[in-house]
């Protein structure tokens, strides 16, 4: 297993929100999608994925529904709520600002 860079704190929510913005997915697919789109640079531990998903359910950003997966198995699909969409906008802005700030420091210092 290749070492993965540490996620910035709080960015897991952002990643999940961003990925679900395109449509409902089940937990395994979310992990998969993150891994794929980061070209295997980011790998989400399952041990933190599910607690994060549940915390987001509690906050009301996501809803979950039981459905049938692509290989005909019962799976739990997560989708964004309007509140989640708002949160996504908010968090991605915050994230951009943060990255910009860090880069600014890196360049000038």
């Amino acid at each position, binding site marked *: 297993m290749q070492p993965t860079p540490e996620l910035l704190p709080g960015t897991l929510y952002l990643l999940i929100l961003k990925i679900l913005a395109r449509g409902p997915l089940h937990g*395994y697919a979310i992990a998969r999608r993150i891994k794929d789109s980061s070209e295997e640079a980011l790998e989400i531990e399952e*041990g933190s994925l*599910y607690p994060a998903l549940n915390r987001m359910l509690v906050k009301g950003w996501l809803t979950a529904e039981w459905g049938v997966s692509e290989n005909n198995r*019962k799976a*739990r699909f997560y989708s964004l709520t309007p509140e989640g969409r708002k949160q996504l906008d908010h968090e991605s802005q915050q994230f951009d600002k943060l990255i910009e700030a860090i880069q600014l420091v890196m360049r000038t210092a």
Partner: protein
Amino acid sequence: MLRKLRYLFQRKRFNSELDDEIRFHLEMAAEERGEAQARREFGSTVRMREDTRSAWQIRWLEDLLSDLRYAARAFRRNPGFAAVAIFSLALGIGANTTIFSLTMEFLFSQPSCRNPETLVDMRIGGNSDIDRAKYRCLRDAHIFDGLAGSNEEHKAEANWRFGNDTYRLQTMRVTENFFQVVGVPVVMGRPMEPRDGDVVVLSDRFWRARLAADPKVLGKALIIDGRPFTVVGVLPHNHRTVLGFGFSPDLYIPASRESDIVALIARLPHGMSRQAAYARLVAACKQLDKVYPPDWGPGASWSNNVEVVPVAGVERLRSLNILPFAAFFAMLMVVVGLVLLIACANVSSLLLARASSRRQELAIRLAIGAGRGRIVRQLLAESLLLALLGTFAGLLLNVWLSGVMNRVQLPLPLPMQLLIQPDWRLLLYSMAVAVGSALVAGLMPALKATRRGVSAALKLTERQVGQFTLRNALVVGQLAVSVVLLTAGFLFLRNMTKSMTMNPGFDAEHAVWAFTRLVPEKYTTVEQKQNLVRNALGELRALPGVESASIACIVPLNDNWVTMTDVRTDVSEQPIRVRFHGSCAAPDYFRTMGIPILQGREFLPSDRKDAADAVIINENMARELFGNRSAVGHTIRYTRPALSAPMTVVGVAKNSKYFTLGEENPLALYNPFNADAWTTNLHFLVRASRPRDVVKEVARTLGRLDASASIEVKPMRDAMGFAFLPSRVGAALLGSMGLLGLALASIGLYGVMSYSVARRTREIGLRVALGADRGAVLRMVARESFALLGIGLAIGLGISVFATRPLAMFLVPELSANDPVTFLAVVGVLFVVACVATLGPALRALRVDPMTALRYE
């Protein structure tokens, strides 16, 4: 938060769903990378599950629930302890919430109406009622969304002819628009409407009790004051009048007579403040001055003393000037608060005893790393559970007691019915009481149980004597508080016996009171009434067994008519301000009532003609106006509004009670009786050596003279219920609270004594084994108990001396608030209780076999 709460109830389902989800994930991963690899990557599923669940958990709530479950298990193991604690709390909380319900119902209940917040009572020119002409004038000014009027005073009584009998009813006379403006709901038929004519809306009580709940009552006619009134509606059983205080009239009829007077009630337009309403009303009153100039002296205006008051709430109580009532309820609340405090102290000392026997369990938990806060919380959960169960039992008690109070019929001049029902205010209050008592009862024991360090607590036993200062302090506190309660209770019991045996200054044992209400419309001239009175008195005097008969406008201790004015006498130019009870009496009144005339004479038939020229005054008034001079033959005149014609004092009557038994040195003045155009209520009085024997005959005689009149005849002794009411209610309420407090405190004392004896079993065994005689052991145990009693008594009596002082306003003047008999009785009762509470445990201690005691442990 809501989502989390839902989770709390669906934990099982949630867990199985989580399992499904994990299984699915693993299967997907296994397909790609093989099962072993997938499991390794996934890591600990247990850990993950715990993390996921914690996202949903409300930590403190789950802790609390598990603490409560634990406490419930503990109580099931030790039902005796739980039962005593819950019983104590149930009594305390039951008494507390019941008085709370009573207070809320009596002082703060909301009338049955639509949107009470925009409904206001109005008073103009300092008058509580105005006549119909002035009412119409204000109504037609259309300054509010509606202006109605009602009258429930004695002018609103009516005679109801039913079969061959005539009954006096209490009505509420209201303007035709009253039901619309106030929005009074009816349960059957419809409300009264403008242009209805002679219609009547019945109360539920009247409909059930007098008309046997006739389902076809609508459209029928009742003969009221000689005229048929059509029934259009029936009110719901929980109808509360706008007057409040549990007043419960028999029926509502239109105030359509020109002689009717009404108190104003207005519906404010939405959003209009009371200040704005006040300003509009004052402006309208200035207009009213022009149409109906006020007649009560120079400078008078309807716009003076204008009041706009909400129909419910504290402000209304203030404007009605009934703060003494409110004070009585406040005192009751304090008293039941004290009872609850005693109950909490009981539970507290039970918890202390329990904590010391559980010391090892707690010590072990502390030793293996439980935080002190966590253990305190767990112990508090126990007392919370006790308090919740106690509150539940107390609420059952409350519902039962409220039911009893709702059914109580008090001997009042106006019909009253309380409609106490559990409501959200009671629920909130009892929740607060439950949490409060859990804290009061549980905090100290919980802190104390966890204060000692781990090592000290782990030690098996504790033998130091005198360590239980907290428990002792609790018992001393309980005793002190119950001394205060008992003192108040005894004081009111003494007050009751004093007032029942008190000589009211007239002979209540030989007088009979016949209350006759005439139908006003039936008597067109004053002569007709005077004839009726003359004939009635003649026939009554002729009855066998009747010694004398008379008539008066006021029956003492049942009604009053107080005047405050300046009086000028012929012995001094200086006017004297006097406040006196007025009445008028026919010849033979003083003989019939058994009130001695000390100087001068009774009224004579000749006094009757020109009403106000002869007067009789009582001793107090004579002393006030004439000092030590004999008053007879002197004259007095009122100075306001204008100087009146002189009235000659023809006699001085002995002082007696006029309106309440509690009044002190009241002045009184009697005028000769003279029926006038406004007289509708005639109070005939008859003297007989055996009053009960003549009651029927008196009623029949009066009934023969006017069948349309309602007649109620009763011996004077029975008619004094109203006068005894305050002392009886006070004695019943405070006496029972005192007993309750005493019972709870004795349980506490008994518990502490038996616990302390049980703890000293070994020591006592040792003493007996070493040859101590039984008397010495008994003395040793008794010394401890009486030391507690002594301190408790000293503190309690000290507080009582001051605490009972404000009670004087509720007591008859013959009884001082610091009544020595009361204090002696309290000391005696507590002494007996302490003896009983000590003797049981002490005897048990003496029966201890020295060997058993030594082997103990």
